């Protein structure tokens, strides 16, 4: 067990080195010169050369990369090109907190709505309630974020003028309602589908029949025997969901004008602000890996039958 965790953790730095290398290479060989973007299209070539020299962008690829890693190890992620002189670490910190809050609320809503709906659909299998839920799930999975967002906006902000169109004022402001609706649609659908499927599977197990046979009340059977076993796969799904949440964040934050890392990422991409892009990629890659490690090891405590080689 411990060996397994250590081995996975040892892989992490190597993974980050490689992710950094690839992003670095894409950045260096990618289109558009960040310095040109920074100084405008009519900047004089001498000024461009001087800024390139000041930023160390004229050095060979590997020298720049090793230098970057060396500084990153000491917590210095470089300076943003777009906002000159701003350290990347500080630039990312507050958007990161915004995105974590937004996604946290969306994920929580997904769990709170998705799991009960999935249980109900499974218990009322093949009734109109089940069919309605399942069709809703299909719609939720198929509808891309950038299609849901304008529909929600059109109804809530334009047609009925219930909510402001965007911006960010923290978790407890009404501005969070629309982005959360948009972001949580996918998770809700996935949780409902998974819960429904695993509840149905567990209901067919022998121990559920035994529990019923010994005269346990139906409510107890569901809560104690069915749910406890059915919810284990949900845990795995949560780890895998991080990827789609990150993609959703890019779209949602751009549309609703929320100052999170998604919007920062898109913005940095268009101004070729590579220090920020690399830092964001490393951040997402490491959190994705860590979350999945957490899920894989946590799994064992939930389901003692699982062993690791």
């Amino acid at each position, binding site marked *: 067990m411990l060996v397994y965790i250590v081995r996975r953790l040892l892989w992490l730095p190597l993974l980050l080195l490689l992710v950094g290398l690839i992003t670095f290479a894409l950045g260096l*060989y*990618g289109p558009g010169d960040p310095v040109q973007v920074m100084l405008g299209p009519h900047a004089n070539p001498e000024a461009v050369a001087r800024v390139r020299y000041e930023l160390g962008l004229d050095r060979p690829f590997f020298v720049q990369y090793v230098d970057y890693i060396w500084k990153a190890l000491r917590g210095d992620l470089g300076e943003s090109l777009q906002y000159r002189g701003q350290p990347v670490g500080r630039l990312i910190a507050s958007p990161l907190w915004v995105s974590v809050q937004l996604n946290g609320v969306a994920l929580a809503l997904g769990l709170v709505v998705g799991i009960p709906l999935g249980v109900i659909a499974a218990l009322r299998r093949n009734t109109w309630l089940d069919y309605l839920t399942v069709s809703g799930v*299909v719609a939720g999975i198929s509808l*891309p974020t950038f299609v849901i967002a*304008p529909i929600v906006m059109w109804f809530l902000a334009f047609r009925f003028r219930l909510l402001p169109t965007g911006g960010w004022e923290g978790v407890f402001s009404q501005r969070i309602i629309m982005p959360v609706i948009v972001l949580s649609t996918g998770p809700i659908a996935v949780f409902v589908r998974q819960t429904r499927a695993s509840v149905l599977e567990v209901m067919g197990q022998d121990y559920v029949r035994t529990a019923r046979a010994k005269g346990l009340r139906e409510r107890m059977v569901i809560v104690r025997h069915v749910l406890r076993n059915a919810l284990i796969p949900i845990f795995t799904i949560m780890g895998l969901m991080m990827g789609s949440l*990150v993609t959703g964040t890019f779209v949602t934050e751009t549309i609703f004008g929320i100052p999170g890392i998604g919007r920062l990422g898109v913005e940095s991409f268009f101004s070729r602000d590579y220090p920020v892009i690399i830092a964001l990629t490393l951040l997402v*890659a490491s959190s994705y890996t860590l979350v999945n490690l957490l899920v894989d090891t946590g799994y064992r405590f939930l389901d003692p039958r699982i062993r690791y080689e």
Partner: protein
Amino acid sequence: MPQEGKKVSGMEEARAARQRGWLVFWRRFSRNRLAVVGLFIVGLMFFTGIFAPWLAPYSYRETDLEAVEEMPSWKHPLGTDELGRDQLSRLIWGARTAIIIAPAATLVGLLLGLLMGALAGYIGGRVDGLIMRLADLLFAFPGLLFAILVAATIQPRVEAWLKSIGGLEGFVKAGYAQVLVVIIALSAVGWPGMARLVRGQILSLKEEQFVEAARALGASPWQIIWRHLLPNALAPVVVAVSMGMGGVILAEATLSFFGIGIRPPTPSWGSMIYDNYSFWRHPAAPVLLWAPGLVVASLVFAFNFLGDGLNEALRPGL
């Protein structure tokens, strides 16, 4: 299947057996009504894409600056966009872009995934470790961000390369260089999933007796992989391909939504949404924005159900 060759006595009989196989497959498949609906929608997309020039009432690039952002009318059933282009025609032409990108990106991803997955699963050891770590690496990247970076990096190179070949300027001008860029970027993102799937299949099949028999008869590793392992691993791969096509359509639309994928005037559903986005308050917005959006959504939906139906029909054991 290789281990069931004994009954075949003549070509006639083999053909009859094949026909019976298809019939059984169709009977199982058509039991799932949603899957049939999915198949119909997917068929409709291919039909529309192939016959777009005859189906579309207008050209996809013809602008009419006296009729911009119009509500639906008899003349323009789905209204016009910000340059007065007929929305219905662009939607129809968008199907052509989709039927080029979706199969191509899926196919390239599939071939790479099959190759890598089969090698990893069959050879095992260091090769397996190396290939799977590479797949892990690409998984750790936020998928969309990686596709965006790849697309942006290779875009100018692909265009320059196509121009240098000669005779392809028209191709580049018509916007098909971007189509190629999107195909490359999406298959780069897509292959690791396929490789994992194939590897898992191969690992479990490798221990089967018919593989041992083939090896005992002196078949080369390539023969074993190509003739014995891959055909038997095909069912889940077919399902994954169907679902993957839906994913590619969605990913293309997302790339285009950020203005990095297909750019106008080349018609693409994603870029139609992107173009009309700033007009979301306009009275025509529901039609301009929702029409391409719902087309994308219903295709993702169709491919998912098609995949489910294929899964049930090809793997009756489950």
